[in-house]
């Protein structure tokens, strides 16, 4: 077993795939610098920088995928999908349906997401709930290096459009690039288990739509993803001391959702606490409630999510994003 950082793992899996499949190309703003290792290994033809025009290059990625390439299109941050949502909503996600199943757009969109380092509300969103609302998109949110690499590989073998959201707190590269690299005076609440970890000798694709149980528990089930998985695990340890046994299920993919495992775990405990860094309403936390109710399961439910625009102030931000304290309080409530 090797050890890798989160971003190393994604890039390493991508590099492995690029070595095998010459159809994979990578482009986005500043990519020559940001993916310089890939550029040097695979050459400037396959690793390209783009103008600041997301609608053009994401839209081009969709069509290039239809025409036989396998583009990995990088967005600077998931928040900026606002300027080019059309390419995903009305094109990538619909090609397969529109063509009567005869044509697909196998592109991978890579975007940093998430907050906790003080960049403010236009740069720290999660938005996977919004993206997963669109039929035809696969949405991946890994929480560990091993998952990040394995899911990247799976994305590159998928027959339709896939979005991989990489949390900036898990990525030393992003934090260093966004300013921490120049100063030792800031520190963020970075989950160790997510930023570094063991990875397989050779990458194998992980199945898409399979959640994984990070911790077993019999009193309540915490379902989460991304950085929040680590917050949930921390909370579960604290809760254990209080005699509450909390399981933690890591979804890994938002869409497709692993309904089977979700239901199985909630049946076990009868209590669900969703911990979701994305906005609370009309998103993942609601969908989980629906899916379990549809299965005819009776359970108690609570959620800890982001309820408003993320504040700039580090202090306010930490309160607004799901934190260990909020998770513990919600869990205690749920046990009453």
């Amino acid at each position, binding site marked *: 077993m090797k050890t890798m950082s989160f971003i190393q793992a994604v890039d390493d899996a991508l590099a492995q795939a690029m070595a095998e499949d010459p159809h994979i190309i990578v482009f986005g703003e500043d990519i020559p610098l940001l993916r310089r290792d890939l550029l040097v290994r695979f050459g400037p033809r396959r690793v390209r920088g783009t103008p600041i025009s997301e609608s053009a290059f994401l839209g081009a990625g969709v*069509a290039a995928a*239809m025409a036989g390439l396998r583009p990995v299109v990088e967005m600077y941050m998931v928040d900026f999908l606002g300027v080019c949502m059309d390419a995903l909503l009305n094109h990538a996600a619909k090609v397969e*349906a*529109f063509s009567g*199943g005869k044509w697909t757009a196998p592109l991978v969109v890579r975007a940093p997401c998430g907050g906790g380092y003080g960049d403010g509300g236009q740069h720290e969103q999660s938005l996977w709930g919004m993206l997963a609302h669109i039929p035809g998109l696969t949405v991946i949110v890994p929480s560990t290096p091993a998952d990040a690499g394995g899911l990247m590989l799976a994305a590159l073998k998928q027959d339709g459009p896939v979005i991989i959201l990489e949390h900036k707190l898990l990525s030393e590269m992003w934090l260093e690039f966004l300013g921490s690299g120049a100063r030792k005076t800031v520190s963020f609440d970075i989950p160790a288990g997510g930023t570094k970890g063991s990875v397989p000798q050779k990458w194998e694709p992980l199945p898409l739509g399979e959640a994984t149980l990070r911790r077993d528990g019999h009193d309540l089930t915490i379902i989460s993803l991304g950085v929040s998985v680590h917050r949930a695990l921390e909370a579960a340890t604290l809760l254990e001391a209080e005699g509450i046994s909390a399981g933690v299920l890591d979804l890994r993919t938002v869409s497709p959702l692993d309904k089977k495992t979700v239901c199985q775990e909630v049946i076990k405990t009868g209590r669900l606490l969703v911990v979701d860094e994305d906005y609370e309403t009309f998103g993942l936390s609601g969908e989980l409630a629906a899916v379990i109710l549809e299965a005819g399961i009776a359970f108690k439910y609570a959620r800890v999510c982001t309820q408003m625009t993320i504040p700039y102030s580090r202090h306010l931000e930490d309160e607004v994003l799901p934190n260990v304290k909020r998770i513990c309080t919600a869990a205690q409530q749920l046990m009453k």
Partner: protein
Amino acid sequence: MAPDLWSLYALMLKARLFEEAATKLWYEGLISGEMHLGTGEEGIIAGVVSQLRDGDAMALDHRGTAALLMRGVDSVSLLHEFLGHPQGLCGGMGGHMHLFSKEHLAASSGIVGSAGPAAAGFALAAQYLHPQSIAVAFFGDGAMNQGMLMESMNLAAVWKLPVLFVCKDDGWGITTQSDVSTAGNLDDRARGLGLLAFSVDGVDAARVWEIAHSAIERIRSGEGPVFLHARCVHLEGHFLGLQTIRILRDPLKEMPKVAVGLTKSILKLHGAAVSERITGLKSIMSSVIAALRDPRRDHAHDPILHTRAALQSDETRLKAMEDRMEEDIHNILITVLGEVPS
């Protein structure tokens, strides 16, 4: 090089007859939703599409029918699609605004401007997979104000992508005239985005062919994208049943529907000063009047008649061709409608 007028004529006629048939079916209610015809722009489409080869791609807008037919998509499967039939080109899932043929590397979209990014993406794939292949984007003058289209011109220019951007300029976006919605000059705009720009009157398919020919040669040789600005007149207006056109064609029936509301609005208490209301009324009238004066009513703008005139000397051949094509479309209709339960 000179184009073969006969084959250009054949391409245009085929599309025209097909779209005329579709028009009937639409009026009969057999085709659902909106219906945007390409009648009037066939000169542009034929002049460009006739030069495409295997491996070339097309990104189409809401008027993709003619381009697909001329590129060789099967008429029966296309008509099936219009009727929402499971055997349609897209299994009845797409309809006339969302036509896709993987085999022909052709994709349509009803999102104005999206042909730009799509053509850039097809061209990017061509750079890797089929050097010397190109991608064509077809779009209207209204689309030239859509950001993603301008962005994609710049992208194509900096990446030297093999794209021919074809603007079919009919001077309108639905009921809005371009001179009130488009500032500056489209050719300058394209040049400011790093493209070579050429202008042509799309009524003349042969002229379009010639200009497109040299543009496409340039593009195939890797010298980067070109902007082809081609004027045209859409003979049926924006889509079938466009209100302003209906008013023109049947004023006695259609005008009252519109006039009642307008008159009331002129008289209502509270609102703008009377003079301003009159200005408002005038501006509406002028858009109807603009449609009246619309060159679409002048046959001189029909590319099919234009090319036909040049072929008229060989009347026998012309008649034979026209008869054959009419029979073709007749057979297609029989094939397709024969199956439709009445």
